[in-house]
């Protein structure tokens, strides 16, 4: 009885009413998320757009309005054009070759024997190794003089390569490392997607006299499409923000042949103190990846089958 009285008193108390109202207010409830988002994403983004119109020296704090000057500089710069084409080649390579290899590996590993389980686990390890370590490992492997890659080529009597130290082979080397690093986790994602396709669909296809090839292209791939779309989106995004492998292995060289846009932004900003230019490049990156995301979600989404 006493408990009830006290409870009722509290129910009508001012403090209770205040908190009760507050906790029913949706704006209050989403405020923490919005504040973090404003602080960590929206504000820096707006700041970058703003600074891209200035020549800005953060040490002295001086800034000078240039209008579209930074953008004009970038599009006239031979280097930046090279960076853009490098980035696009890099993206297309890891998107198509990488995805193809992931699908092949996923299909091949999608069995439940102990051997397949071991290979699955082993192939996942690059995902939990720091990308810096992966870069270092490949710098040993690809060393033009003592690396295993060239030793192998020499043993087979094939021409050797300068790998990441050669102007013509450096971007190719960076692509190999990036594809290798994402292969295991990508294959695992494919396996998860394959296992979500029910067995009876395949049985129905068998009774429909469908050949293994036809089943793969007409049943497996369409039913895997949500997984594939997700991987296309994340792979494109990661290609545009790929930084650590380049920083570790080549520093963008030789002769800008491996300079990708994320590294270019870093180089212009922290390297050459050209923050306005870096911000302008970042804005261009934002526009490109935003456009690609829109394309991915509108064009591809129509061809994706969600169960």
């Amino acid at each position, binding site marked *: 009885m006493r408990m009830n009285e006290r409870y009722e008193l509290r129910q009508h108390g001012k403090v209770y009413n205040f908190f009760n109202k507050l906790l029913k207010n949706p704006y209050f409830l989403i405020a923490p998320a919005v504040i973090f988002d404003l602080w960590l994403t929206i504000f820096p983004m707006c700041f970058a757009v703003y600074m891209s119109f200035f020549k800005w020296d953060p040490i002295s704090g001086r800034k000078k309005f240039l209008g579209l000057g930074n953008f004009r500089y970038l599009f006239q710069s031979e280097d930046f054009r090279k960076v853009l084409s490098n980035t696009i080649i890099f993206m297309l390579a890891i998107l198509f070759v990488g995805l193809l290899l992931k699908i092949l590996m996923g299909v091949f590993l999608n069995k439940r024997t102990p051997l397949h389980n071991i290979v699955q686990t082993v192939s996942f390890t690059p995902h939990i190794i720091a990308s810096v370590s992966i870069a270092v490992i490949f710098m040993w492997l690809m060393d033009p003089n003592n690396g295993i890659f060239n030793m192998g080529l020499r043993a087979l009597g094939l021409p050797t390569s300068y790998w990441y130290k050669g102007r013509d082979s450096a971007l190719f080397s960076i692509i190999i490392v990036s594809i290798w690093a994402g292969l295991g986790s990508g294959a695992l994602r494919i396996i998860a997607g394959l296992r979500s396709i*029910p067995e*009876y*669909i395949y*049985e*129905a*296809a*068998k*009774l*429909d*006299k*469908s*050949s293994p090839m*036809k089943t793969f292209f*007409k*049943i497996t791939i*369409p*039913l895997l*499409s949500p997984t594939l779309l997700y991987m296309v989106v994340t792979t494109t995004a990661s290609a545009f923000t790929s930084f650590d492998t380049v920083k570790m292995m080549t520093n963008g060289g030789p002769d800008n042949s491996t300079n990708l846009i994320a590294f270019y932004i870093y180089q212009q900003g922290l390297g050459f103190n050209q923050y306005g230019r870096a911000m302008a490049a970042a804005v261009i990156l934002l526009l490109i990846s935003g456009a690609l995301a829109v394309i991915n979600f509108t064009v591809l989404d129509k061809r994706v*089958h969600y*169960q």
Partner: protein
Amino acid sequence: MPIILKDIKKIYPGSKEPVIEGLNLTIKDGSFTVLLGPSGCGKTTTLRMIAGLEDVTEGTITVDNTDITRMEPGDRNLAMVFQNYAIYPHMSVKGNIEFGLKNYKMTKEQIAQRIKDVLELTGLTEFANRMPNQLSGGQRQRVALARAISKSPKAFLMDEPLSNLDAKLRNQMRSELIQMFKQMETTFVYVTHDQVEALTMATDIVVMHNGKIMQQGSPKEIYRNPQNIFVAQFIGDPGMNVFLLDDGNYIGFKPRGLRSSGSDRDFSFEADLLTSEFLGFDYQYTFETGMGRIVMRSIDELEPDNHYRLYVQDADLFFFDKDQNVCEPFAIGGLKGVYHADE
């Protein structure tokens, strides 16, 4: 085109115990054969072996005098309807039917005509371009049927096709299946654990238990003349009451054969009424005999919590020997206890 299974043995990979051993079964041409049994009895495995989705460890399956034991599922000219329909979720209703037909040697016009025919037959014409996720459960089931029909197979194999539908729709689909069977004049092999489905649709019922055939016969034969205690207790609503006797033999009687009054010549025993359930037309009573519980179905209204003497007329008694098979009537000795085959 009879389907003949000869000395079939099935051991699943990684297991030593066979799930099916020494199975011999002839499915008559043009029959609606229902494989009936509790879960785990091997009925679905049998069906899947006929379809080619499971390997046969030993024995042969012939359809129309052709040995199909090792043939690819697609080459057997059989169509299957799955429990969860197994329609391709990314293809329209039309696409689902077309996918299979394209793998047969048919011209485009023939395919289009065939699709049109089966869509009409199954009442799906207006849904031809719908995707499966826009269809109700009953409509999806019809798509699965349409896909099966489109191939004009030698036989239809159906694995509990109605079990995912609600009760009302199930009744409706049941009568549609019966109509379809009459129209097609093809063999149907139908797996279910639901005796109502079996009794209503089948021309032939095969009762299975632990990988063995317990009895094969028409619904009336199975219902009226069970060959052994398992069938007697599995079929019926509810199943037969069976007493184990002192000499190791058994006697049984159906719940509807039990009466609350009778003469001294009848088989009779004492029992307490435990529960009574009003079922509309009649009542279902559960009695405690002191040796176990028995069930009675009757239109008579009995007083609850009372002691009764229950009677079974000679004509309603079933006699089973020590091996639990039906046998000639014998003199009934002392009762040992109530017996249930599935316990």
